[in-house]
């Protein structure tokens, strides 16, 4: 069936199988930052933003995004021009293997679009559905708090 939606700021018109998981569509479109860690909604590795809200792309089928805005990590920043939130992850050592990182950054991004002054508990709550097996979450929480600080200082976009 026909599908039109916005992916990282670019309008897409394409033909999809109605039963294709959104996760697999996005990866097929080259968005390899969207990871599959479980396929059942439990781990958060496949997180994307749908109209600004973090959702599990493994629990959606492609047609559900008709007319909506989808953002993957690819749409946030680049290697040479990272978003401050990505910088904060780097600076704080919040990345070990990096497999949970795309989802983690996106849920943090959603949080920080809503508030600039989260408490450590707010951050822990926001990322609670995104499993990380490497870090113990300590440095991830640090990174989100640092990014929030930068946001308050006006270093944001």
């Amino acid at each position, binding site marked *: *069936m026909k599908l039109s939606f916005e992916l990282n700021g670019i309008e897409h018109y394409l033909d999809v*199988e*109605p*039963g*294709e*998981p959104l*996760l*697999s569509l996005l990866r097929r479109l080259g968005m390899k930052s969207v990871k*599959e860690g479980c*396929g*059942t*909604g439990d781990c*958060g590795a496949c*997180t994307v933003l*749908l109209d600004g*809200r*973090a*959702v*599990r792309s*493994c*629990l*959606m*089928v492609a*047609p*559900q995004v*008709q007319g909506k805005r989808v953002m993957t990590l690819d749409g946030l920043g680049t290697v040479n021009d990272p978003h401050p939130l990505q910088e904060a992850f780097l600076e704080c050592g919040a990345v070990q293997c990096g497999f949970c990182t795309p989802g983690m950054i996106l*849920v943090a991004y*959603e949080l920080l679009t809503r508030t600039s002054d989260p408490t450590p508990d707010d951050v822990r*709550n*926001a990322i*609670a*559905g*995104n*499993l990380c097996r490497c870090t113990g979450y300590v440095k991830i929480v640090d990174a989100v708090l640092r990014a929030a600080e930068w946001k308050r200082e006006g270093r944001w976009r």
Partner: protein
Amino acid sequence: MRLTGIRRFHFARDAEEALSLLAAYDGGAALLAGGVDLLRSPRGDIEGVIDITRIGLSYVRESRGGLAIGATTTLTEILASAAAPAYAGGLLASALSQVAAPPLRNMATLGGALVSAHPWADIPTVLVALGAEVRWQGEKVGKAPVEELYGTAFRGLFRRAVALEVVLPPWEGAFAHEKISRTRYDIALLNACCGLGLDGEEIRWARVAVGARPNRGERLPWAEEALIGRKPGGELWNEVQRLVESRVEVGDDRRAGAAWRRRTAGVLVRRALARAAQRGET
């Protein structure tokens, strides 16, 4: 990832269209709200899905002192709504914020939770405790208390009907929800939702529901009776705790055993009562 077995996808424009599509598929289609359950383990017999998230059923309204919540309202939308936080002493804010995690709450709808009615879930326990009523549209428009519905073959009903709205009645008093899980991002090993209304020194009404036992949340009318007309306080809560321990129906599953559930059910009821009483005072 594998394709789901879904072959056709429809956006319903309204409940009538959703119903006629359902009828046309004759059992081979399902309504899709948040999809958290439907797409997590797609039923093999489903060929078509009918998305009902764009038919205007996402809202939270105050309604005669209570709340009316559209069936496709997500848990996040309820939490963010203006009306929900004050309702029933803040019950919804505390109970719903313990459901799953933000990205799942961004997707999951109240109607989906109501219809899925997982035995381990918190939402059915809460709805039953609150005496929530659901309105639906099938061949006819219907309405029933959630508690009553759960005593019937409600899943069959919702294969031919669209849940439209959940109505939460007004309560003068407060509720509290307790949940124990293995991690903080987990379903309940046991949950309890209790509410109290006070008339001076006396308990005027009481609601007690316990869920994930491992069966779905149900009220304990005998525990409620034991509370009504009595003087609130630690002694009474302890008495009800013992009562619950002795009478609550519990069972084993892989998540927890009956003996632990029995003891802990008493504890959770006592704690929920104490918290509800405290909330009611403020």
